[in-house]
């Protein structure tokens, strides 16, 4: 079965393709990418091979090597970092395999010679989306001044963009922000402990911003557990986060989610086009983030319904 090679006709029509998918790690977002892609590819009679880089460019290069050897028609790859992954991306192209960059493509990964197409959430916008909501809150409730604690996931380059986006949104809204601490916390259990410690050391913190799903869950749980009411602004969406947005405790306020299914489908379409010999135009697509707000329960409920 996997020995089957797509015929020229298949390639032209985009059927029976063998697609390689490289993800950073396992989490809700990538799960969405994987399911979305598998559904779309299967509908065309193709197959998907998935690999994890675990955020390690070296592992990424090895996974890519192995996929090249298994003669996939295209590789959809979320690079561990634009610059860190450049050599791997070039190696894939050199092997004559179509490459689409998805999810987070920065720096060199944005160059047209390094891939056949780029589709990603606008990570800066993921930060800005939440940042704007936070700015509104600060302006209305805190008189435009706030002490803010950040839980970062800077090990991934996308997170740095999110942070920049968040800060920029506050700056644009004229907020006088004091970032009292910026701690690494992107796994749910670790973030809970870190949040508790932050609240102890900075009892005057006005709000917390967390840069990914695990961090947002941990921050919300940590605040609740400390018996505090400090609002949490988050990033990413999952069923659990959606339920937290609906929770009466009123801790998690707003989070900006990506749309993994759309990203996956879009990337696949771009791959098909490139395989068929067409140029992708536009070369780079940016998908907006979706802002989920406690104030808009309907939108949150829609997400939950769609996830079940």
């Amino acid at each position, binding site marked *: 079965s996997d020995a089957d090679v797509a015929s020229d006709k298949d390639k032209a029509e985009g059927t029976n393709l063998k697609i390689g998918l490289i993800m950073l790690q*396992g*989490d*809700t977002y*990538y*799960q969405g990418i994987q399911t979305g892609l598998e559904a779309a590819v299967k509908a065309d009679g193709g197959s998907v091979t998935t690999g994890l880089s675990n955020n390690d460019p070296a592992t990424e290069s090895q996974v890519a090597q192995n996929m090249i050897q298994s003669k996939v028609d295209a590789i959809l790859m979320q690079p561990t970092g634009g610059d860190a992954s450049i050599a791997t991306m070039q190696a894939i192209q050199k092997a004559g395999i179509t490459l689409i960059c998805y999810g987070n493509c920065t720096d060199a990964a944005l160059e047209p010679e390094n891939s056949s197409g780029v589709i990603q959430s606008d990570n800066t916008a993921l930060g800005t989306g939440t940042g704007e909501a936070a700015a509104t809150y600060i302006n209305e409730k805190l008189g435009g001044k706030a002490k803010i604690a950040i839980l970062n996931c800077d090990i991934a380059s996308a997170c740095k963009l999110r942070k920049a986006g968040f800060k920029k949104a506050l700056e644009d809204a004229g907020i006088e922000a004091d970032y*009292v*601490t910026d*701690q*690494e916390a992107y*796994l*749910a*259990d*670790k973030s*809970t*402990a*870190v949040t*508790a*410690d*932050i609240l*102890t*050391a900075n*009892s005057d913190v006005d709000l917390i911003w967390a840069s990914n*799903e*695990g961090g947002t*869950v*941990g921050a919300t*749980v940590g605040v*609740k*557990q*400390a018996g505090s009411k400090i609002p949490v602004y988050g990033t990413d969406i*999952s*069923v*659990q986060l959606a*339920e937290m947005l609906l929770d009466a405790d009123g801790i998690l306020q707003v989070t900006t989610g990506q749309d993994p299914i759309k990203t996956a489908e879009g990337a696949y379409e771009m791959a098909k086009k490139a395989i068929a010999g067409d140029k992708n135009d536009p070369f780079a697509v940016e998908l907006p983030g979706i802002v989920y707000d406690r104030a808009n329960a309907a939108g949150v409920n829609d997400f939950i319904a769609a996830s079940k």
Partner: protein
Amino acid sequence: MAVADVEVLQKVPTSPLAAAFQRAKAWDGIGLLAVLVLLYVVLSLKSPYFLTTDNQLSILQNAAFFGIVAFAMTLVIVSGEIDISVGSMAALSSSMLGVFVVNHGVPMPVAVVLVIAAAAAIGAGAGAMRAYFGVPTFIATLALYLALKGLAQLLTNNFPLPIDSERFFYWGDGRVLGIPVPALYLAGTFLVLIIISKKTVFGRSIYAVGGNAKAAGLSGINVRRVKILVMMIVAITAAITGLLQTALLASGNSTIAVGLEFDAIAATIIGGAALSGGKGSIVGTVMGVLFIAALLNGMVLLSVNPYAQQVVRGAVVLAAVLVNVWRTRKSSLE
């Protein structure tokens, strides 16, 4: 060999009291206690929040999430074995609970029992591999470290599974008389395991097996059973840790407890246990646990750069071990 011992030979103490006194004087833990006190003094001076009741309780709660395992790990290390799969085991337990409760509608108490039983079986399996086939536990649990984590991700597809049960959450973030429930678990595990280690036949057998497995076997101690049981106990504590985390986070997660094995082993070693077996105590491990928990808490309170935190952590583990080695030093090589 050690000169001190020869002296002891010359004037063997003549009463149990004198012996007890001598032992206290030579207590290996004294160096560690001094280091711990020093850490507390430094952190108290550096941060006004450190010594507050709230913060100390918070340290205890966070300590629970690796301390419960550390106590059991002490028994494992005293028996001459090791378990580096505890983090993956905790993640698997959390995932299993999520899958049982959320996907299959299993009632919570049943699910909890199932998860703990599964963990016990896996732990016993690793112990049995050691006991019956001589596969070193380092290797067996290295393999489990990968396999269990993979299994957890496979089960949940790496989605967190939100659990909806206020009663259950209580175990993660409730309080009894103002004390966080996980801290109570920590204390409970401490009590149970210290009684086991000091007062029961099984507990003393662990020291016998770790000190001289052959002799223990010849005396009629069931060495295999001891090895299997300690591996089972540590797996159960890993599962309990996973369940407490699940209750705290209100969801079954395959991403939790990364590096749990590091903290649990480090606490045990800092507490004075020897990797070669036969030596170590749960009281020592308590200090090791508090040491690490206070250090992690203190570094966040002081907003230390997270990367630098890692460096400090590594350096401090090394320093603590050096202090210990220094005090109990027999002879280095040659």
